């Protein structure tokens, strides 16, 4: 049988980061895959060269809607290195607190989406309900559900009362038992196991070779988590366990996400226990450099690298951002090899890409005629039907 090319993606007007995959299929099996990105390239790196450093803070925060705090942190830390600022301890704890809350909501979002892709909408509803609790907390702390805007060079913009912090502790702890349930379900629910186990294999060596980051790498047994392996903020004062799974499949990546939820709760508790009193910011200079700095921040999806070249003026000379999803694309292309077409949704979802790009928008089209053949919804329905008919797994 001859090979068939199909194109998946990227159409949707509301997408932040649409992606297109071209799959070469031999019957149901994927022989190879290629990716094309940039459908909504916004030129942020060029934009950074035009605005001054304070304007850059608002721009970096808008790189991503889910992990906006991660990008803003990486930027602020990089600039502060060149400004040679000593940031007050309390401000660093507040930054870490927001970062861990962001990790909670990002991972809860991902668990819901992963469950949704295999037709398990009960978990989708549960985890997104839990996520609302975290989102409400973030709104209480920062005023916004996304783009928290708490960072400023030299510290943070908002201080919190003891009552506010106690409220964080109470609400986060109330989620703990539900998170344990997500871990339990993953190890016991047969339909979940059947759809995730041995799907989207990424061997340990390939994960290193292709430069996978974050939960994708940790699911393949690569011990890399910058909260442990690198030092930034106050993570060296906290006890952080690195969650590593050896399964190399989508199940291992699910386990990493679910167990990291519990770990994030533990970290939040430590932050609330140890947060010192004191000032929350120091004055910062207008001009930066000259010099270069590289910051690596552990975003929910993995290593987020920001590079800054400053020339001593009030504007960055060159700013470069590498978001974690880009680093994981070569890895996801590798996962597709020798997989079933029906596993495409699970594999794409398993690397935790920026969900707005995959979930709502992927379009299956015939590359020769350009005629849309299948919507993302239909593809998911097809894969659920495929497993129901051939393996007796009901979603």
């Amino acid at each position, binding site marked *: 049988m001859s090979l068939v090319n199909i194109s998946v993606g990227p159409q949707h007007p509301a997408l932040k980061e649409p992606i297109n995959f071209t799959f070469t299929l031999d019957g149901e099996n994927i022989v190879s895959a290629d990716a094309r990105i940039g459908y909504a*390239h916004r030129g942020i*790196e060029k934009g950074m060269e035009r605005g001054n450093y304070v304007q850059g803070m608002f721009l970096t925060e808008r790189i991503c809607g889910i992990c906006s705090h991660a990008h803003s942190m990486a930027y602020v830390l990089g600039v502060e290195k060149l400004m040679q600022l000593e940031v007050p301890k309390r401000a660093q704890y507040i930054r870490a607190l927001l970062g861990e809350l962001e990790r909670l909501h990002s991972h809860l979002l991902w668990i819901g989406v992963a469950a949704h892709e295999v037709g398990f909408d009960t978990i989708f509803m549960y985890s997104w309900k839990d996520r609302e609790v975290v989102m409400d907390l973030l709104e209480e702390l920062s005023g916004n559900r996304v783009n928290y805007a708490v960072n400023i060079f030299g510290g943070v913009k908002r201080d919190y009362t003891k009552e506010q912090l106690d409220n964080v502790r109470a609400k986060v702890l109330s989620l703990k038992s539900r998170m344990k349930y997500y871990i339990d379900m993953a190890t016991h629910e047969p339909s979940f196991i059947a759809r995730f186990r041995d799907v989207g294999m990424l061997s340990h060596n390939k994960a290193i070779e*292709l*430069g996978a980051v974050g939960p994708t790498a940790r699911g393949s047994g690569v011990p890399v988590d910058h909260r442990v392996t690198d*030092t930034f903020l106050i993570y060296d004062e906290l006890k952080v366990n690195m969650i590593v799974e050896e399964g190399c499949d989508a199940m291992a990546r699910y386990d990493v996400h679910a167990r990291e939820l519990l770990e994030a709760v533990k970290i939040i508790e430590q932050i609330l226990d140890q947060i010192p009193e004191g000032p929350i910011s120091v004055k910062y200079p207008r001009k930066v450099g000259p010099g270069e*700095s590289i910051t*690596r921040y552990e975003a929910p999806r993995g290593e987020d*690298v920001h590079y800054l070249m400053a020339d001593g003026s009030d504007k960055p000379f060159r700013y470069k951002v*590498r978001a974690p999803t880009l*680093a994981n694309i070569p890895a996801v292309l590798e996962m597709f090899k020798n997989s079933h077409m029906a596993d495409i949704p699970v594999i794409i979802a398993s690397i935790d890409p920026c969900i707005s790009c995959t979930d709502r928008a992927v379009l299956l089209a015939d590359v020769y005629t350009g005629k849309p053949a299948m919507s993302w919804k239909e593809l998911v329905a097809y894969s659920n039907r495929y497993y129901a008919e051939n393996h007796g797994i009901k979603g």
Partner: protein
Amino acid sequence: MTEDTALALFEKDFQKFNGTLKRWNARQVELTVDAKHLLDVMNVAITDEVHYKFLSTIVGVDLGDKLAVKYLLAHKSEMLVVTVQVPYDGPELPSITVVLPAALLYEREIHDLLGIVFTGHPNLARLVLPDDWKDGVFPLRKNCVMEKDDAGKPTGACLINQA
């Protein structure tokens, strides 16, 4: 092996490439080498002794009179930045994808945005720019500005590289 000795070993190893070594801070070192040594440096960097096997990203910079490419290699909390410089006209570098496949997308991105050709790359197709983008216009170069009409007003649509 502790991190200190890995770094020391690598400093010794790279003497032979006539590079200049610059220590940014305790954990970040920049090595500037001639482009012809690039692949040799990469081959040494990924050995089990030196162990810079993780390519964080590749940064392309327009320095005004020439282009620079910085390879950010990492091992745990350490970072080795390998910098090479290429001329403005006809910039060309060997692709490091044979040594580090993680560079596949990063090299394509720099090819799009700065116009550096990576020889030996398996597929140097467009990655981030649109399919109908004008050939030879590289948006991240410093001389890339908005196109203006005869009255001096920006046309709003297109970028050009000024001579």
